[in-house]
């Protein structure tokens, strides 16, 4: 069995690199000056993407065999699967609309998500009794597929915004777009910092009181923010600059805060250096490359179509299947658990999106911003609700 899980891990690596290579081919489509003339780069790109997707399905199946349950039971497995569903949704929409640029943005986002996933514990974990149900994979996979499709809406929205926002002057639009780009930079920083320090085997251990008990707290990054009333145990490690506020609860609260702040600073550094090199807003730098290639109405329709396809899937997986399972496992189909509530918020948000679009004519720019907001909610539900607001679903 050990072999199988090793194979599984290697398949995931392979899929990761295939997506990376495919991204470059989609990037090369920008060079095709005339629209829709040469399809070579795009065709190679989508072929490699499909190959990567099949490879990742291989990872999924082998891991399933090794663990005897669908690998969607912890944060690593779920997030990886989400990345896979994003790629799948991209492939589907690519074949409806044939927009090469979609690949140039969808694949890097999927890559970031998969890389982000592997920052969490990757070992095969057992299922607690409440998770031992067929609904685990029915509910989780459908919900994730829905979120993947909805994320493509964000990708298309982002392309729309980068290509269409008036960059000749600073406006709310340009500032928010820079904020979105900065957020992506912060995620990159988190991945670089986490994997970098873990490759170096960095550790600093503290003794600190948690709920009145002296507990050992381990940092895997330099502790700029130490635990409240903590004493550094590891020799030679950096002394924290400040202590985490006392009202933050939980063993890992200070560690999480430290990681969060470091990622934000790292993102700031990445973003700042980029701006210095580009000598203008990142959005303004990117715009000329996309402008010629982008048909704004088409991209707008892709963004909307992704919501139209993804909303029913999401509702089915994240609400209806979730309710059926909750009824079986916890004797109530709805319990106002934070994860449930955030699924409902996602539902409300896209319901509002659809009403605004279909009945009030919110197209183009406004629709694109909504798509970005929806993705923000999905990410919040994935990350913040699991790591910060704990509840029944915080199995990570």
């Amino acid at each position, binding site marked *: 069995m050990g072999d199988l899980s090793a194979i599984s891990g290697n398949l995931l690596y392979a899929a990761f690199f295939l997506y990376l290579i495919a991204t470059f081919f989609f990037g090369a489509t920008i060079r095709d000056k005339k629209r829709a003339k040469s399809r070579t780069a795009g065709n190679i790109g989508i072929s490699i993407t499909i190959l990567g997707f099949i490879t990742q399905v291989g990872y999924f199946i082998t891991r399933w065999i090794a663990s005897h349950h669908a690998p969607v039971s912890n944060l690593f497995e779920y997030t990886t699967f989400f990345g896979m569903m994003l790629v799948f949704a991209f492939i589907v929409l690519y074949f409806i609309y044939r927009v090469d640029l979609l690949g140039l943005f969808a694949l890097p986002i999927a890559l970031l998500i998969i890389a982000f996933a592997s920052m969490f514990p990757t070992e095969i974990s057992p299922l607690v009794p*409440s998770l031992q149900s067929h609904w685990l994979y029915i509910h989780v996979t459908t919900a994730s597929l829905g979120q993947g499709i909805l994320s493509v809406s964000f990708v298309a929205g982002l392309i729309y915004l980068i290509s269409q926002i008036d960059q000749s002057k600073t406006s709310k639009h340009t500032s928010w777009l820079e904020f979105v780009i900065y957020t992506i930079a912060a995620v990159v920083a988190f991945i670089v910092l986490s994997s970098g320090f873990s490759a170096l085997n960095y550790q600093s251990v503290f003794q600190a009181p948690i709920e009145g008990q002296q507990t050992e707290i381990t940092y895997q990054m330099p502790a700029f923010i130490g635990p409240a009333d903590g004493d550094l145990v590891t020799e030679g490690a950096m002394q924290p600059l400040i202590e985490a506020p006392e009202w933050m609860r939980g063993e890992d609260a200070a560690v999480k805060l430290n990681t969060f702040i470091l990622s934000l600073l790292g993102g700031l550094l990445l973003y700042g250096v980029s701006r210095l090199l580009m000598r203008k807003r990142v959005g303004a730098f990117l715009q000329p490359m996309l402008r010629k290639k982008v048909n704004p*109405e088409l991209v707008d329709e892709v963004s909307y179509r992704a919501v139209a396809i993804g*909303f029913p899937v999401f509702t089915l997986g994240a609400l209806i299947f979730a309710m059926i399972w909750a009824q079986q496992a916890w004797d109530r189909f709805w319990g106002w658990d934070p994860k449930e*509530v955030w699924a*409902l*918020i996602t539902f409300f948000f896209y319901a509002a999106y659809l009403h605004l679009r*279909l009945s009030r004519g919110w197209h183009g720019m406004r629709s694109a911003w909504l798509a970005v907001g929806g993705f923000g909610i999905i990410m919040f539900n994935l990350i913040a609700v699991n790591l910060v607001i704990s509840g029944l679903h915080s199995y990570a």
Partner: protein
Amino acid sequence: MNEITCECGHVNPEGTVLCEACGKPIEGNQHINGNEDKKLLNMRYDGSARRSQTYNRTIVDKVWNFFSSVKVGVWLIVLTLIASAVGTILPQEMYIPPNVDPASHYRDQYGLLGQIYYQLGFHNLFSSWWYMLLIAMIGISIVIASIDRFFPLYKTLKKQKPKRHELFMKKQRIFGVTEADQVDLELYKKNLKKRRFKIYEQDGHILAEKNRFARWGPYVNHIGLIIFLVGSLLRFVPAFYIDDFIWVREGETAMIPGTEGQYYIKNKDFILETYNEDDETDARFKEAIQKQGGPIPKTFQTNAVIYERTDEIIPGKEPELAELKDTQAKMNHPIKFDDFALYQASYQLNEFKEMTFKIHDKGNEDTNYGEFTVDLSDPKNEYTLDSGYRVEIDNYFPEYEMQEGAPVSVSKYPKNPAFVFTLYPPDSQEAETSFLGIGANVDASGENDYKIGLVNFDVRDVTGLTVKKDHTLPLIALGGAIFMIGVIQGMYWNHRRIWLQPKENGVWIAGHTNKNWYALRQEINKVISGTHIQEPRDQYEKKE
């Protein structure tokens, strides 16, 4: 009713924007949909006469118009969304530990924020009157907005004629003029049929339409939502919904609450299994088990027998029970019988069942003046031993804790029992009092001659099961199913219409869809290929 007769002869109801039959913009009503001379027609609901856009005089009109507005609906959704998010900032009251005072819990755990959260009632946000009101208003809005739109739209699409007014054609978003001597209309119709369009003809005018049913999707899903909400409301009716809880100790038979004494359950055995890294099948989880540090539960299971009472229910009478089923309740696998379901919800391990004590000399543990056994679920007031010693239980603490130097019981479950015994030796008038618990044996006066010591005890597990009867589930499931059908119907199909008008030297062509215009244009291109009809233009001008 001020009916409007169009030049095509069709009689339209008051408030119509575009003639139901020919689509001609009706003079004097164009402001309703914001149509202007130079701009494209607003095709919302096909320009049908909606109550909300026609009347605004009485209170009823005003209420109707308020709730039928999509703007209001979206605001309600957004407000509910924000409120829901606020409800997740801190745990709701149902998720904080039981037996704590919520006011102090929120203050102690979350400081000022917690205090404000509690004071504003956000700890019970989802059952607050204003949250319920928001949901109710969304419900009303769904009903009114749907009625306001569905019926006029349905009638208009039913009455539409292939022959359209020229103005209607010109002001469609997709419009094209073809000037050609020969247009292959037969091929055009063949192409349309191949793409599963329905074709209607009138004096050479051709209307091709497909997927009209997609227009009903929103109304179908709204019906589903309403059924779902009604189902949720019915839970407040006791006949539809019972939610109770029962603790059953191993070996005990207990009446199941909520069944009016009809059903009983016997807990034969409660099983708690944990993952074991040394076990062969669990070995694959070794790393995760080691990392966790503590045991990871694998199974919670109650082996139980369900009984039905067969005799008439008379209070105080010993029931006659007939076995209904011998079964298990596990997580994800509730026991079901009649209309009820029992869910494995909780457990207590190693609750004390019996404790056996002996009386001996204070200084010598080997002496024995007799033993007595206390049944912790039903302790007697006094125990008289064969040797003539008598022990009275002055006080019993099922789960004791020392608080400010005095023992108190924090629950009624014998998890950590303690007693105050008074011992009456046969040969003496002097009673001796002592306090006895696990790891505590205190001589009250300090002058006792005897001592009571624990010699033996028995423990057993207790299972906690939720008792549920829920007749609202079928309704809620129906609502959910209808909602899904409606959403898919509305989202995965597009209503498309293509009009063709014969002209002296060619044809006019116009297209409309409720969504996905790019895809409609692709489809039109396929339909007109080879027919000499020219590709129509998308007249949509970007507003931003």
